[in-house]
């Protein structure tokens, strides 16, 4: 049991060691920050559910090197975005740009949320309406209550 746990911990450590990028040095902390934030924005084309920072694919290594070189050459996020999109398409971005093609992707969830909220709202209103229809109107129930009270009084008096 203990041994299995240890093996699991060691294995998870190994995964981290494998995933670690080669440490790269930059001229300024801003460049280093840009580098690390960008690696999380781009998808590895080879193992598509990993970003460039996580992936061990050799393509990811090449792209990391390319991004580092571009940052060192003074290029910003926009230049690097364009470089990658020109080669791999929007798919390389985890956050695709808003366009006619991706509109459903971006707006869809909000539309669904609004439709769902509207549905809930309509349902609640209907239920309230039905509940008030079932209970008698106020005056009528008062009338009934008064009559019953009078009947009780009469019974008591007798």
């Amino acid at each position, binding site marked *: 049991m203990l041994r299995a746990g240890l093996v699991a911990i060691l294995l998870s450590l190994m995964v981290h060691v494998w995933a670690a990028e080669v440490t790269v040095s930059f001229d300024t902390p801003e460049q280093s920050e840009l580098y690390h934030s960008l690696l999380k924005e781009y998808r590895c*084309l080879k193992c598509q559910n990993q970003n460039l920072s996580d992936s061990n694919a050799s*393509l990811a290594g090449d792209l990391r090197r390319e991004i580092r070189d571009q940052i060192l050459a003074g290029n910003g996020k926009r230049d690097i975005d364009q470089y990658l999109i*020109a*080669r*791999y398409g929007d*798919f390389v971005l985890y956050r695709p740009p808003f366009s006619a093609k991706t509109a459903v992707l971006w707006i869809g969830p909000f539309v669904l949320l609004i439709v769902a909220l509207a549905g809930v709202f309509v349902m609640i209103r209907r239920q309230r309406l039905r509940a008030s229809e079932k209970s008698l109107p106020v005056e009528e129930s008062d009338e009934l209550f008064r009559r019953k009270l009078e009947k009780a009084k009469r019974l008591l008096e007798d």
Partner: protein
Amino acid sequence: MNIALKLLPLALFVAIAAFLAKGLSLDPTQLPSPLIDKPAPEFTVARLGREPGDPSDGDFISQDMLGQVWVLNVWASWCGPCIAEHPYLVSLAQQRPIPVVGLNYKDEPGDAQQWLARYGDPFAHVLDDRDGDVGLDWGVYGVPETFVIDQSGRVRYKHVGPVDEVGLTQKLIPIIDQLQKETS
């Protein structure tokens, strides 16, 4: 409760099922190339077995291919599916008189030469891209990949993964034939 409301869950189910069915039929490894109908990235690269700048045969310059339809196949000796694909490339080179250019991607030149000696060499030019720089510019993300480039130097078709019988007879050859008709 009206009938429309009663049918709503069924409609939702059908809609979700339709989306999921579509998702199942898509292959996530097949990415549309942004290069299609764009000018092919230009490059100059050493031929396999030669050092860059070796004057004996000259470096391969992609611009030299202008004016003809040609095929760029990205392969490597470490790539298993390339072996399965290879007979179809040999067949393509025999069936159509166009240059099939082999880009040897991130490979050891010695391994690549042995590989070609073993499986046959259908390539008009074999190029040494051992660092994968050319592959990077062409947006290569999985080997093998096959591009068809037209007379004006634009990429017209990209096949990701090994070319098979269907890919050769129903895609590559018809596209090549059509492109060759375009100017003549």
